[in-house]
């Protein structure tokens, strides 16, 4: 048991580092620093994706046969750490991490051949269509209907909290194709072209001032049967597969450490009144505590990865622990960063994206975005399986 990289892994890390040094422009890094949201502004994200595509590194988690990198988990971990360290724009979202694995596992050869390359080259950007206004954590209660009519479905209903749907070309969605039996059994997984007639997208602004979420309405939208994934009624199983999929292969340690490092830099700068926050014992104590949290979470990630690498399963308690702790750590860092601002916390810049504004010093820009980052961080414990759902999962395992 040890924490040592192999010689080969060291070489790999150096290769990644060299690539990032050369290709990750200051302008992209700045845009990411000024981005309060989970995912990058799509224009920035696609720019960066294009560069990764040239290198063949768009989809670190994909097998080589589909255009992925075919890396080991350890290499993916190292890649992720280096990208975060360098400050890359976050753009591996629903396209690469959600619809792609579903296509690989459940898609027909035609579907794979058509859709996967379009993800890599950025032609398609996918939005998620799970949540509905009436169904949040209780996903199976969804109501959006798809009626089979000849060779196509007619979709009516609405999806909400669809991230970046206003920039996306397509949506994968869970829809109801039957009302009989258990509610899970009538759910089907389909792909919707967002340029289809009958699709309307309503923006939802978040409390951090950014438009990233949307409500998407479907009014007699036609979806060819060939854009159904799997069989009718198989949607629930596919959704579950996706939830399980990331286990042991989702790393947040890198971004947490990068955020903490940025906060450290901010805290080492003198404030308007001359003090440095890092010299404030209460600030420092909180900062240090969070650093121990980051270490512990990082270690859990490595242990989970090691288990998966050896053919095992990290287990539901560690997995849910990591989901919960990542959200809390991210929130703590963001909250602590905002506590530095003093009266400047009152100022609010409404323009989005912030990177379009005239350039200021890195520190001033860090202060400018800190409130929005804090507000945005509150979503970490809500989306992607709320912390309450994670606690339920843990409790179920404990009481089994």
């Amino acid at each position, binding site marked *: 048991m040890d924490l040592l990289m192999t010689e080969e892994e060291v070489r790999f890390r150096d290769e990644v580092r060299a690539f990032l040094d050369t290709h990750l422009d200051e302008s992209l890094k700045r845009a990411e620093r000024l981005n309060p949201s989970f995912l990058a502004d799509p224009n920035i994200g696609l720019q960066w994706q294009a560069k990764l595509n040239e290198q063949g590194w768009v989809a670190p988690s994909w097998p080589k046969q589909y255009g992925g990198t075919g890396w080991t988990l350890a290499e993916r971990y190292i890649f992720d750490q280096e990208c975060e360290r360098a400050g890359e724009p976050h753009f591996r979202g629903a396209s690469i991490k959600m619809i792609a694995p579903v296509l690989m596992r459940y898609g027909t050869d035609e579907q794979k051949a058509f859709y996967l390359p379009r993800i890599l080259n950025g032609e398609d950007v996918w939005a998620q269509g799970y*949540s509905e206004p*009436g*169904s*949040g*954590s*209780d996903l199976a*209660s969804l109501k959006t209907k798809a009626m089979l009519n000849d060779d196509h479905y007619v979709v009516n209903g609405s999806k*909400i*909290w669809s991230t970046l749907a206003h920039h996306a070309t397509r949506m994968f969605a869970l829809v109801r194709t039957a009302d009989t039996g258990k509610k899970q059994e009538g759910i089907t997984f389909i792909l919707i072209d967002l340029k289809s007639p009958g699709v309307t997208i309503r923006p*939802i*602004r*978040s*409390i951090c*001032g950014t438009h990233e*979420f949307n409500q998407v309405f479907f009014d007699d939208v036609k979806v060819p049967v060939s854009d159904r994934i799997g069989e009718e009624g198989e949607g629930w199983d596919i959704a579950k597969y996706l939830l399980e999929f990331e286990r042991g292969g989702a790393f947040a340690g890198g971004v947490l450490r990068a955020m903490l490092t940025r906060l450290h830099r901010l805290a080492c700068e003198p*404030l*308007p*009144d*001359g*003090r440095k926050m890092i010299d*404030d014992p*209460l600030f420092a104590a909180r900062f240090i505590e969070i650093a121990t949290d980051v270490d512990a979470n990082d270690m859990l990630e490595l242990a989970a990865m090691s288990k998966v690498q050896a053919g095992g399963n990290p287990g539901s308690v560690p997995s849910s622990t990591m989901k919960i702790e990542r959200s809390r750590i991210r929130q703590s860092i963001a909250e602590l960063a*905002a*506590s530095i*601002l*003093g*009266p400047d*916390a*009152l*100022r*609010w*810049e*409404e323009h989005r994206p912030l990177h379009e504004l005239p350039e200021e010093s890195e520190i001033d820009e860090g202060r400018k975005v800190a*409130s929005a980052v*804090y*507000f945005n961080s*509150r*979503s970490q*414990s*809500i*989306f992607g399986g*709320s*912390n*309450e759902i994670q*606690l339920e999962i843990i409790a179920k395992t404990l009481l089994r």
Partner: protein
Amino acid sequence: MDLNYSDEQLLLKESADRFLKERYDFDKRAKIVASDDGFDAGIWAEMADLGWLALPFSEENGGLGGGAVEISLIMEAIGRALVVEPYLASVILAGSLIEKLGTESQKAEILDGLIAGTSRPALAHAEKQTGFDLGNISATAVRTGDGYALSGGKPLVLGGAAADIFLVSAKLDGDIRLFLVPADAAGLTRKTAKLVDGSRACDLSLYNVPLPASALLDGDNTLVEIEAAYDRANAALASEAVGIMDALLDATVSYTKERVQFGKPLAAFQALQHRMAEMAVKCQEARGSALLATLSVDALRSMRIRGVSGARAKIGKVSRVVAQEAIQLHGAMGFSEEMPIGAWFRRLYAIENTFGTTADHLKRYGEIIRDPAVLSGSLLREPA
């Protein structure tokens, strides 16, 4: 010792709540926030009609002689309704300082207009480097033939966007004094600043602004009065925060009662019930703290600080948790700008950074209780 509201006070509270409920709902407020001025003149006029703008001033100055308790009731209602008009800045902070330090003619001039709703003064005191050390300012006034010339920078003047006259602090012969500076004075530049809570402040620069002799307020004790005014404002902020916390709890309880998940309302889940109960505990505690602050603003300085900064420190901490929990229990809905949850959250965040941060107030309170007599002393006071 009596801690029950009088019938008049209960009526005031009821009327304030009703007025804002009818005339200042969340949609109306959203329109005001999105407007050019970020200010609704009609609402301000109605506040004048209701007597809110006259509330804290003595009857001899044309006011209603209301005390800190009456102000606290208005502020709770303002918190719940998320009022962005500068009641705190113009009436409580600037207005009361003018009443304390103004000459008779200044009082007549400014307070009459303020009470009538035609004038909105704003205090421009803190500067970039001031932090929580109120004496640390560098604006200066120099004597001229027939008055003064004033220079300095005053960032983030609360209520400054809608102000017609500023109460500007500057050093005159080394002492901090206050001057009345009309918003249209020569040499004064005002830049509107949008704030995180939807309200507007301004950044003020003054460069050799010529002022008549009559612009100077009374007072060798100006700094002492400024500190006392900030403490009144801080007590008011504590009550505003309490109003917001209660509103967040109410909204969360209502939402979880309606929102059905897994076949039953969220409010039927015991884990969520206990979390709402913990929110209620924090709301109660905050209410206790704010009441102590309210009843301390006229006490001796050490008792005043114990009450006021203690409340700001305590409420800063618990209100943040309540706001975060309210968002969490609303789920995605709490994270969107479509409900007031996020606006309350942001206003509490603003309060935590107004007139001293939570950390600043904790330190200030800590310094006061280094004296064991303060630490171990009863909240009850001997009659004067």
